[in-house]
């Protein structure tokens, strides 16, 4: 289990992480969501005891990371894929890590096999692709067979096959009863992988809930209607209290009233319905909506601003 209590980190005047409190439960994958620069990595480093919080505390299994007797055996982390000496082989890197926590050498071969790096384990890590580095980082995190895992952007640099592999691995780890906390700025990936969600923007907690609840509570049910007479239907639905947006192609986007009411109203008015479909907002849209105010680095398409 991971928990943060009033966790804050300030760099000069910038509050990178601002009074963050949340809990990550065991047995499911918890996604840690936020735009780039929202404080995800800083939070993870504070959980790992690498960065000192300005205020608040973070706990792994109820203890501060510095109080864990066998750190690698309790918590594994993939913080940056490049945390490897380029001149050292993958195997030596893992052996050195294993020795710190009395982990048997056989386990090194096991994790190399698990991440599919056995064939290249003697090669210098500096010659690895981004994806291979990511796999080596995952191997490092799994080395001590820890009950708590933190992955910062684990699918970065992986090909589609690699992404599927990571997803299945994470799910298997969670199913074994581990705590799996993964950060991402990709909402779509979280929708596929995570059960729980911790969402932050500009270092502040935006949501701490399940993926399902997050979508439900942040979307307005919208129904798309195509009919034989858009303008008349518009009037009829408006009369029922619906909020209607007419689209260019003649269809209507209706909120506040549901599909049943729309269908019944159309029938009694003698208007033929050609399409009636509820619109599911994607996690991506919900997230964009929620964090649009808290994105630090807006892109610009303004030529003047760019010059």
């Amino acid at each position: 289990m991971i928990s943060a209590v009033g966790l804050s980190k300030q760099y000069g005047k910038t509050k990178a992480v601002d009074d963050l409190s949340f809990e990550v439960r065991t047995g499911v994958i918890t996604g840690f969501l936020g735009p780039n620069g929202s404080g995800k990595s800083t939070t993870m480093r504070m959980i790992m005891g690498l960065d000192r919080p300005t205020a608040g505390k973070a706990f792994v299994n109820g203890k501060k990371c510095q109080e864990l007797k066998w750190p690698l055996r309790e918590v594994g982390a993939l913080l940056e894929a490049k945390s490897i000496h380029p001149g050292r082989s993958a195997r030596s890197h893992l052996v050195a890590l294993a020795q710190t926590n009395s982990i048997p050498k056989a386990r090194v071969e096991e994790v190399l096999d698990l991440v599919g790096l056995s064939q290249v384990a003697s090669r210098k890590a500096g010659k690895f692709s981004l994806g291979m580095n990511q796999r080596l980082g995952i191997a490092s995190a799994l080395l001590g067979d820890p009950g708590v895992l933190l992955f910062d952007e684990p699918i970065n640099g992986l090909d589609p096959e690699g992404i599927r592999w990571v997803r299945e691995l994470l799910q298997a780890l969670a199913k074994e009863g581990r705590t799996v906390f993964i950060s991402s700025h990709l909402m779509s990936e979280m929708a596929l992988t995570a059960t729980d969600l911790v969402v932050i923007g500009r270092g502040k907690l935006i949501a701490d809930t399940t993926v399902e609840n997050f979508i439900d509570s942040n979307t307005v049910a919208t129904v798309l209607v195509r009919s034989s007479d858009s303008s008349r239907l518009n009037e009829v639905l408006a009369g029922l209290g619906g909020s209607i947006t007419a689209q260019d192609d003649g269809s209507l986007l209706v909120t506040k009233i549901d599909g049943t009411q729309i269908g019944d109203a159309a029938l009694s008015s003698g208007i033929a319905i050609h399409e009636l479909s509820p619109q599911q907002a994607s996690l991506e849209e919900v997230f964009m909506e929620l964090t649009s105010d808290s994105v630090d680095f807006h892109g610009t398409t303004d030529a003047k601003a760019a010059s």
Partner: protein
Amino acid sequence: MTVTHTQMPSTDHGHAGLAGETRSEWTKFRSVRSTWICLFIILLAGIGLSVLLTFIQAARWSQSSLQERATFDPVAFSQSGHFISQLVVGILGAMIITSEYSTGLIRTTLATVPKRYTVMAAKKIVIAVVILVIGEVTAFASFFAAQIILTAHGGTELPAGASIVTQVKSASIPVVTIMSPGVLQAVVLSGVYLVLLSILALGLGFIIRSTAGAISIYVGILLVLPIILNFFPSGFKNSVEPYMPSNLGIAMVVTTTRTTDWAGVLLTPWVAVLVLAIYAAVFLLAGLWFLQRRDA
């Protein structure tokens, strides 16, 4: 997908500590090529330079000035390889920590042990033991090689207690054996000098964290500081000069000429060891202070 088959040892007792961390640091140390290049340079350049300079000195003894004859110390001269090895041990000492900061590996490393000072202690043990071994091998090899060259050039052993006048007037270059007074100690301290420097550089690496920065400052302390000192008034210069790290190194290895040219410039060997050990400890403690406080 099952993730674990290997039987993991129990975590009920003990904790990740210095023993495991030291094994890990040793693995890290020997698993990169730069380590072996540095050690090879210490050995090769250390012995090679000593041999070369001794050979030149021996060949031209008959044309040497009185000053040169008076200051010739067959032990100190045999350790001329320090010119290079003292730089390389510093690079090695600094790099075993700065390379972790430049690659980000330090985050992984610090997350493996409960206490950060364990990492520093483990690195110190590894670098000290390795440099002690390589330093002593180099020192003894250089010493014996030099005495063989001197003997081959007609060098003779001066009688015990011979004055500097005898040395200056001697037609043949002086030679010593390892059993001559103070010689064994000087050769052993030659290796100790390198060990203390590597620890000083390690401390510097923890403070500066960048390889280029740490090595620049190290070279500055060792080579540039004495040059700058020359511009100070002689009173100040003379009182500070014996405490320059490079002069502490010379103080550890001179034997026969202690009473002559170097007198006043050099501390006695064990005081020199003590002073350099204090420098190393100060850098290491400062490094520890930063390690404990700064974000990784």
